[in-house]
């Protein structure tokens, strides 16, 4: 028979009371604060009952497996799942703060509907049945009017079952407007893979076997899609392998945390990554240091070639040799030419070497060309699909859902042009351009948006042009948000159908590219659902059923869980490294043990690319055909409108042109360098105090600060903590200054993710309102994070 320490304390307190203490201990406010009310699911548990429940973290897309310590039905501590290939037992600050999300005081406790005027932010409770019935009725009416296309689905989930479910919903309902966030985060990197290798996904890197890493602005220790995995890998690069110490070179304008941990840091001007990389390529080709066998056998467009129409086209080799001498690259990017020469030689000597492009490489007006240049460098080094190189993430063989047959209404809707302009003449190379949406929604062209769904999406805060987003949402008859927290966009919604927090959900998780080998995580509820919330997958299935007809038929499952099980059944056939079973049910149980299902090693067979030439393409024929689909005059007009200098073959090759910024140098002397620190999350981290107050690289900003270089600060007579007004063509705001040497003179560092919490209706905060939403790589439809100039003045 044992007694918990708490019982002992209570007994002790009682004894004190008996002895004649004036105020009984149980009345003492501090003592009271130590006694917690019972939680759902704790009724049958004995005191002190505790267990470790496995699940998958949901604070970012990396999908680290976790073990949550649950005491008496309460989740008290998150730890990493040992042996899970992505994080191997560890977990970063965001994951650790997960219980803060679960027990957040601002969680939406049940379905709500707007009351009063739009923008008032007043929400009142409603029942699930009423909310679902009303939304279904409105969607049905839209569809019957033949306006299925005017439903816009915004989803921040780039992969996994929810992405597939929304995609299916869009197909069955008949809207082409399923838009993700990639265009504003890391779109160009995916597009570079798409046009050169045929897969619209970031590469994964085989860091365990590489010998040299060139980070192009790499933020792998801050806000990579696989930060925890990369941290682990980068520590392994130093001491994990006896006798082998990998060199890590970081190139970029800002001395970030990842730069701090690099062996060498090379400073270049903002958004000139492409020039640096093409300079390296020049040296590799000139000195015959590239992988000639790989280039000759498995690539297309290295040498000049003649197309099917008899027209001669430029090759990558000719472009690089004729234009990109280290001297010219140096003049463009500011890095010394001898450094470019030396790094090229080092990369050739220490193979396998990899060049890692940060999302910000592609997030500039010259983004796609630069992202392609980095990928081309990897090809020159022969590091594509090789051990120690750059790998395409392989996916587990989940069973597909039954094919659906869109009816006539759906077909008509799917054939409509996309509202964001992707694939049209203004953005022929785009695969989604969320930042184009507010303008399109406000103008009602090519057609008005009648309904908007916000899933994992708070565009008013986490996308440029927040004010415009709020105006655009206000003009839409039906806005539905699935957010568990009342963020800015949710306050502008007509209905809120709150999702569970990720520690209450059941689903499988497809992690962002990590090791190359297939892996599927299993997220399961660690505690009982706290509020009257419903998992969004379940809500979509129910909504589809209420819509009935062909939409309902496409969602014939009993529940979302049934849909997930159907897919997971596909894994039974394939033998996982850790989990195997005879049926789906057994497999799920096995997956719960280790956090998921995975294979140990990627299958590095022959390189097969889904490109027209079936090879790795230096010269992208897919780009060529997409551009050819636009009338030449219209294309020329668009290129001129956007200020693009490149023409013809250059658009299809990795290329560089000087970046364009919003704002004239004379008016706005600084370039704004927004960055995502370790505590960044897409919807912001401002609701989690522990992350807001996380000590960052230097000093203790512990809040949103504007980083200014020492010399600039001296020139402007600014000291640490001085209040300044930052002005850009897009907006202005007041910020405290943090003087630091790691920021390039002439630039201003701006951390993203901070802002007002709880948000106020019709107000947008954070760094994005300073950024000009119209600054972009126009052809690729990718927003230019590094595309806005700014000026500062002391707040008087």
């Amino acid at each position: 028979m044992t007694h918990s320490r708490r019982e002992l304390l209570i007994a002790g307190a009682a004894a004190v009371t008996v002895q004649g203490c004036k105020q009984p201990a149980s009345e003492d406010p501090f003592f009271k604060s130590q006694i917690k009310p019972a939680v759902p699911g704790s009724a049958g548990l004995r005191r002190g009952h505790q267990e470790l429940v496995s699940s998958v973290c949901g604070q970012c897309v990396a999908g680290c497996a976790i073990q949550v310590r649950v005491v008496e039905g309460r989740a008290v501590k998150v730890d990493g799942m040992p042996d899970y290939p992505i994080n191997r037992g560890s977990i970063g600050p965001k994951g650790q703060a997960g219980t803060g999300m679960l027990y957040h005081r601002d969680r939406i406790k049940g379905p709500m509907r707007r009351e009063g005027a739009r923008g008032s932010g007043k929400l009142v409770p409603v029942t699930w049945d009423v909310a679902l019935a009303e939304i279904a009725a409105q969607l049905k009416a839209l569809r019957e009017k033949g306006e299925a296309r005017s439903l816009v689905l915004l989803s921040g989930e780039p992969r996994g079952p929810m992405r597939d479910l929304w995609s299916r919903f869009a197909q069955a309902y008949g809207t082409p407007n399923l838009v993700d966030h990639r265009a504003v985060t890391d779109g160009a990197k995916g597009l570079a893979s798409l046009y050169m290798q045929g897969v619209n996904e970031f590469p994964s890197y085989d860091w365990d076997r590489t010998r040299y890493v060139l980070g192009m602005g790499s933020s792998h220790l801050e806000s990579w899609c696989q930060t925890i995995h990369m941290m682990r890998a980068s520590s392994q690069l130093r001491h994990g392998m006896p006798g082998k110490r990998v060199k890590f070179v970081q190139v970029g304008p800002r001395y970030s945390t990842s730069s701090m941990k690099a062996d060498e840091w090379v400073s270049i001007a903002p958004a000139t990554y492409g020039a640096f990389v093409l300079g390296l390529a020049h040296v590799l080709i000139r000195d015959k240091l590239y992988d000639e066998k790989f280039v000759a056998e498995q690539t297309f467009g290295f040498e000049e070639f003649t197309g099917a129409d008899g027209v001669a086209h430029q090759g990558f080799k000719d472009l690089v040799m004729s234009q990109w001498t280290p001297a010219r690259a140096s003049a463009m990017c500011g890095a010394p030419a001898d450094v470019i020469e030396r790094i090229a030689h080092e990369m050739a000597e220490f193979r396998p070497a990899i060049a890692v492009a940060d999302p910000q490489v592609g997030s500039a007006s010259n983004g796609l060309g630069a992202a392609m240049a980095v990928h081309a460098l990897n090809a020159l080094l022969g590091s594509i699909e090789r051990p120690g190189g750059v790998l395409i993430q392989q996916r587990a063989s989940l069973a597909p859902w039954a094919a659906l047959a869109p009816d006539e209404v759906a077909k008509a809707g799917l054939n409509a042009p996309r509202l964001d302009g992707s694939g049209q003449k203004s953005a022929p190379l785009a695969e989604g351009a969320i930042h184009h949406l507010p303008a399109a929604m406000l103008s009602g062209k090519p057609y008005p948006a009648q309904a908007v769904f916000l899933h994992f999406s708070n565009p008013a805060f986490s996308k440029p042009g927040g004010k415009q987003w709020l105006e655009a949402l206000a003009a839409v008859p039906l806005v539905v948000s699935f957010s568990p927290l009342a963020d800015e966009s949710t306050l502008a919604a007509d209905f809120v159908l709150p999702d569970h927090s990720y520690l209450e959900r059941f689903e499988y998780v497809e992690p962002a590219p990590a090791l190359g080998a297939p892996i599927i995580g299993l997220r399961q509820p660690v505690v009982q659902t706290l509020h009257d919330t419903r998992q969004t997958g379940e809500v979509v299935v129910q909504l589809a059923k209420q819509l009935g007809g062909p939409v309902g038929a496409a969602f014939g499952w009993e529940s979302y869980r049934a849909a997930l099980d159907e897919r997971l059944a596909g894994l039974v056939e394939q033998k996982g490294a850790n989990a195997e079973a005879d049926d789906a049910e057994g497999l799920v149980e096995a997956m719960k043990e280790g956090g998921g299902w995975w294979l140990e090693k990627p299958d590095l067979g022959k390189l097969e690319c889904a490109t027209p030439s079936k090879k790795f393409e230096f010269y992208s024929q897919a780009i060529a055909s997409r551009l050819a689909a636009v009338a030449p005059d219209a294309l020329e007009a668009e290129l001129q409108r956007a200020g693009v200098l490149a023409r013809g073959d250059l658009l299809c090759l990795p290329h560089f042109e000087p970046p364009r910024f919003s704002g004239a140098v004379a008016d706005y002397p600084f370039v704004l360098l927004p960055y995502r620190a370790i505590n960044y999350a897409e919807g912001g981290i401002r609701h989690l105090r522990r992350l807001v107050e996380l000590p960052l690289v230097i000093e203790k900003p512990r809040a949103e600060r504007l980083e200014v270089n020492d010399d600039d600060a001296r020139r402007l007579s600014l000291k640490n903590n001085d209040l300044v007004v930052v002005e850009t063509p897009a907006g202005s705001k007041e910020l405290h200054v943090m003087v630091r040497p790691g920021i390039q003179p002439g630039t201003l560092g701006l951390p993203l993710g901070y802002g007002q919490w709880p948000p106020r209706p019709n107000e947008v905060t954070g760094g994005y309102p300073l950024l000009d939403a119209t600054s972009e790589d126009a052809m690729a439809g990718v927003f230019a994070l590094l595309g806005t100039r700014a000026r500062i003045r002391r707040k008087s």
Partner: protein
Amino acid sequence: MSLWDLIASSKKDDEADAKVEARRKALHALTMGTAGALVALATLGAASGEEAKPAEKAPAPAPKGDEKKKKKHNWGMAIDMDSCTACGGCVVACQTENNVPAQQEEDSEKARGIFWMDLLSTAEGNYGEGLKLEVLPVPCMHCEDPPCVKVCPVNATYVSDEGIVAQVFDRCIGCRYCMSACPYGVRHFNWTEPKFDPAEQQSLNPDVACRPAGVVEKCTFCHHKIRAVKEKARADETTLTDNDFRKITACAAACPAQSITFGDLNDPQSAVSRLHKSPRAIRLLEELGTKPKVVYLRETKWRE
């Protein structure tokens, strides 16, 4: 040696076991009522061959000279700056494990936040001219000769028999002498009652008491976790190895780069002992003679 330590101690000889068993019974009786406790305390006296006396006055520790040899454990830590990525995972892990409230805006402005594990940074050079920043995760150094212990007027802080610089929160009178004495700034004062909203209270760790206002608090090397594995090992009758302790603190368990190693410095084979002897090992403010038990392994260069 406190009552709890006695319960947790895993002495092997029969006499000690009998003593511990008797104390456990006494403690159990205490929860039942005073009469039972008296009986049990009498039994305790009989078992240990001493007079019955209140439990707080447990047998006096052995003379100082012998104590060092007798120490079963001497906990220490090594933090590898070569692999540390300055992510702050250790900071948040420590806060959630030890019920440290998140600092609010007003605390932040007044620099009153509590961070048992903090990240401190140093900067050298200018942009383009030998710029080098470094970030150090800084927990309590658990010095062998801690200045804080010497100044505490009420014995609220002491070096435990396992080498942990411990703090009895209930005994602290909040004079903050220890904070002035500590050269590492790792002691923190509770200016207010801990701020946890009711929802957040659900996630408090029941193994760690919250500290009220007016009390100094600090890193404990997660001694509750050390105690828990020891108790579990005793119940399961297994022996503990270095691997069981290596990642026992919340910071070491979380560290994505596996930079933090914890362990027993009395065990020459433990990973932490070996790292303490590494040529890369440096101690913070070593010249002060505090003999910190947390060492940093300095960063290396490529092809060094």
